[in-house]
Structure formats: structure tokens, C-alpha cells
């Protein structure tokens, strides 16, 4: 892990911290009385704010988790060099694609 990866991971974590709190708060609120697709969508669809909120979250978490898994893969699975970086990029891509799809799904009208 280089200084650059370290800083990016820390900064993404710092960005996520308030978002996580917010997300959990919303979920607790939403969960009261059961969860339904309609409810979720009703709240989020068409909202630029929610799009930005979840969009930022997805970008941050994808980067953060990709770097995090990269470390774990290197230390616990012995991955090195190109294989390691490729794996990290793959994780990043996967999370970004799935994440943005989800964000699009819940916020697009």
C-alpha cells in the first residue's frame, strides 16, 4: 500500500462516515411499519439530492472497498503485482457498475 492509496482510502472513509449515519437513520425510519418497493421509490425517484447522495456513496464505497480488498487479497491471499492491481480494478468496476445501476434504479423516474 502506498501513500496515495492510503490517503484515498482514508478520504473515502471520511466522506462515507456521515453518509452511512444518514443512510442508517433513513433506514430505521423507513423500516417502521415494513419496507416496500413503492415506499422507497416514492421517496427517492426523481430526486436529484438523493441521486447525489447515493451517487457519492457508491463512488466512495467502491473506491474504498476496492482498496480495502486489495490489501486483504495481498496480505491474506498472497496476490502481488499485476494480478493484485487487476483484482482491485475489477472490484472497483463491479461495484461501480452495480452501484450506479442501483442508484439509477431507485432515483430515475
Amino acid at each position: 500500500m502506498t501513500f496515495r492509496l492510503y490517503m484515498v482510502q482514508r478520504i473515502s472513509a471520511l466522506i462515507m462516515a456521515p453518509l452511512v449515519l444518514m443512510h442508517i437513520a433513513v433506514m430505521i425510519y423507513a423500516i417502521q411499519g415494513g419496507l416496500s418497493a413503492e415506499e422507497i421509490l416514492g421517496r427517492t425517484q426523481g430526486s436529484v439530492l438523493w441521486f447525489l447522495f447515493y451517487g457519492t456513496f457508491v463512488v466512495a464505497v467502491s473506491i474504498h472497498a476496492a482498496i480495502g480488498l486489495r490489501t486483504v487479497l495481498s496480505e491474506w491471499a498472497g496476490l502481488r503485482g499485476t494480478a493484485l492491481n487487476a483484482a482491485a480494478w475489477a472490484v472497483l468496476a463491479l461495484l461501480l457498475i452495480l452501484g450506479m445501476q442501483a442508484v439509477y434504479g431507485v432515483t430515475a423516474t
Partner: protein
Amino acid sequence: MADKHQMSVSVWRGAAAGSFQSFDVKMEENQTVLDVVAWIQQHADPTLSYRYACRVGMCGSCAMMVNGTPRWTCRTHVKKVLVDGHMEIAPLRNLPVIKDLATDMDPFFDKWVAAEGLHHPTQTRHDPIEAIDPASAGRVEVNAGIECINCSVCYAACDTVAGNPDYLGPAALQRAWSVYNDSKDAGKQAILDAVSGVGGCHNCHSQGSCAVHCPNELNPMNAIAGLKRETARNFFRRRAR
């Protein structure tokens, strides 16, 4: 073991590949783990290899894994580690084994140098000795880590070292932090660069095993945190310029 006057000692034999061999050793009043190892070599099996020099905790050459924990053996009383009359002695972890209990410590020292853990002079032997306030912040920071005997116990205790062969490790980074805080040192940027690379201080997960096991009660984790802080600060400083 029922016999109060005997202990059974499993000792690693071989190099990377090898196995444990068991010896019965007589218990003595004031016996260190190193004494046990030496006794085996001198009286039971003359082919046993190990390393020591000072025998009083100054040289850091006698560290081994005792019951899975890295320790300085010359200053570890047998009573402290014996479990039901048994103990297990293995070569120090995270270093290549030369033979039996002796490891090749070169990687540890190569990293010490790679971390720029050495003085970068600003003055010469022809200059007077600088007055330095012993209570100044930098000096206090240096003093916290200066009594390192490079025994590699922390290096063996650190799982990050185990998982990442590039990682410079706690002792080397602590030394870099000491040098960094020396008001007379000319290599500050070189140090920050050296500890910011692939094997740098940012790999440390603050596992803290280094601080827990350092026989001299030093705290490399704190020193490494210092480096992380300074590299971050330096990054923003350079940006601002």
C-alpha cells in the same frame, strides 16, 4: 510432565522445512530460555544451532519464538513460559531460517536502511557539538524510541510483515521516525519519501503487537502513527505551495 525437576522442550530442527524435536531438560533455579537452548547444545545434541552474544538483553541476537510468542530468550525466565512442564522453541518468525533456531536477519536490516533509518549529517567532526534542549518536543519524541536493540521481536510479532514481504516493519519505521525528529538531520524529505512507498508506513494496520511484545517496552506503533501524520501533513503542505 509430572516430574517437577524436568521439563520437556520441543525445539525446531531444520531450516524452512523441518520438525520439532523433543528434549528433557533439568530445571534449575535461575534459568533462562537461552540457558535451556545452550544446555541442549552443550549436553544433549551438539548439532543444535542458535545465536546469542551479550546474554543480557543488549545485542538483540537471541530472539526466538517461545510457545509461539517472540521473545528475547536471554532475559526470559523459564518459569515465565513453562506450561505444564513443557515449552516449544522455534526460530523467529518472518525471517528466513538458516538452521534450527538461527535466522537470517539481513532482510530486517536491509529494511532498516531502506527506511532511511540512519543519520543524514548537517555537520562535521570539525563543528562544535550543538546545544540541544533535552526537553524539546523533537528530542522527547526521539527518546521514546531510541533504546531499540534491533532484536526483531516486533518484526516477528507483526502480521502485516507476515502478509506483506515488502513491508518495512515496525523497528525500521520507528528508527526512521526518530531520525526524522532529530533537529540535526538533513534527510527529512528523503525519510518521508522512503516511508511512503510500496512497503511504507501506510501498510501498518495498527495491530499493536509490536508495542505489546517489544522487550524494551518501546512503542513502534506510535512512531508509525507519527510518520503517517507527517506524511499526510507534508502532502497538504506541498500541495499548498
